[in-house]
């Protein structure tokens, strides 16, 4: 029986919902995006879906489940729909390593890249110590990824293929690239972090990533937001 389309509550420019779309694309799962504005996420109707009032959330008519938090959604999707291990592993220890890198993306990349963007780009008053704190953390995280890719020695974070762990970083690294360019900190990054750069390039060649990055960039451009 063909799969019914998953409903995904997303946003034209936010990295976390688009991150889930990349995994949906990779797994060939049909989905509909319900685009929500940030002004709507704290309304009761949406709080019934996600008590935290944030994006993304999904409802899967194939199983009847409603879930929120991009990390929990991605784990659900691969658990339910990636039996062929196209972007995941069931073997030990790879299964746990992919979960570990996803947790690092959720707790270590997303929040800090988000704070860096806020202080460097949106907050009207420039607070150099806050900008430095978060931009340095962005670069530190890039260094951790670069080193891990070197250590694993396959071009990927886990095992010898591209997994949801790698893909989960892509939407925020796109934002980071735009931000670091604005701050004149992008120059030299390629030579300082060559494996990270190669890793991103390889991911950006994938159809799923190409398609979603384009949609996210278009959404941001249409609303006057930098990449």
């Amino acid at each position, binding site marked *: 029986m063909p799969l019914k389309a998953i409903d995904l509550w997303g946003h034209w420019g936010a990295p976390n919902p688009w991150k889930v779309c990349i995994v949906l694309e990779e797994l060939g799962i049909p989905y509909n995006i319900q685009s929500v504005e940030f002004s709507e996420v704290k309304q009761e109707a949406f709080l019934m879906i996600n008590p935290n009032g944030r994006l993304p959330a999904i409802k899967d008519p194939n*199983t009847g489940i409603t879930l929120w938090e991009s990390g*929990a959604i991605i784990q659900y999707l691969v658990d339910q729909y990636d039996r062929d291990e196209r972007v995941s592993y069931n073997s030990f220890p790879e299964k746990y390593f992919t979960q*570990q890198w996803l947790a690092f993306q959720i707790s270590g990349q997303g929040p800090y890249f988000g704070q860096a963007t806020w202080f460097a780009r949106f907050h009207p008053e420039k607070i150099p110590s806050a900008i430095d704190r978060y931009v340095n953390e962005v670069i*530190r995280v890039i260094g951790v990824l670069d080193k891990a890719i070197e250590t694993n020695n396959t071009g990927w974070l886990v095992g010898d293929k591209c997994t949801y762990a790698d893909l989960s970083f892509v939407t925020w690294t796109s934002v980071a690239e735009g931000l670091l360019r604005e701050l004149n900190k992008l120059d030299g990054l390629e030579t300082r972090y060559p494996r990270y750069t190669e890793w991103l390039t390889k991911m950006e060649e994938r159809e799923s990533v190409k398609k979603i990055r384009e949609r996210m960039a278009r959404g941001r451009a249409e609303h006057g937001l930098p990449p």
Partner: protein
Amino acid sequence: MAAAIHSNSAAEASKGPQQPLTLYTTQTPNGIKISIALEELEIPYKVFKHDFVARTQKEPWYLAINPNGRIPAITDTFSDGSQIHLWESGSILKYLVEQYDKDFKLWYPAGTRENYELFSWLFFQIGGLGPMQGQMTHFNRHVTEKIPYAIERYSNETRRLYSVLEKQLATSQSGFILSKFTIVDICFWSMVAASGWAGVSLAEFPEIHRWYEKVLSRPSVAKGMNVPEPHPIQVLMDDKTGQKAKEFEEYSRSWVMTGMAKDAEGLKKRDPAC
């Protein structure tokens, strides 16, 4: 101490299944999540206590275990005899229940709706409440020059996140976050135990306060929260002179601010995970 583990680690790697699990930790909210879970599941474990002042968490032997140079991390022997190093508190908790909690004491059977929902809450803690409370603590406690906007930003967001938890507890029938005590309670409780230090008052969140006391009454929590050393929060909150708080603040500030400066220095030299 670091040197002792360093020289042991390579030899230990080949010793096989008799080795107990090792927890690399410090007395922080993320560290005690794991010791509490280990106590709940009665898993034997050894503790390696990091020294953040000496920056043992950035030494090469440890970066081989956790390339992010943070705590917690574990080394464990899998059922096939091979070794695994894992880091990130959320992924360690998932590993522990999947490997050791066959009776679903702290989670639900894999593939069930309840278990998927459990991970919505777990990710909400590690990606939301954890980092934001951490930022609030940083700007309230570590930065000497007060930045009103940053304090307000992270105080408001942390309190908003607490109000999400408050509402969930108010509607829960079990008195816990989900239908029973789970790793999600452990995750949030470890953060809430440091709420007073961050600057959040539990007087504002009566449901959280009630739940906090209920969880604290569990013997495994009372034990696990004091790994690798006694939890400082009660001492700090009971100290009316404020002297102990001042000392603790100076200690925290010293390693955090020195660490940030060293990280920034390392970035210039392209030191991975500096």
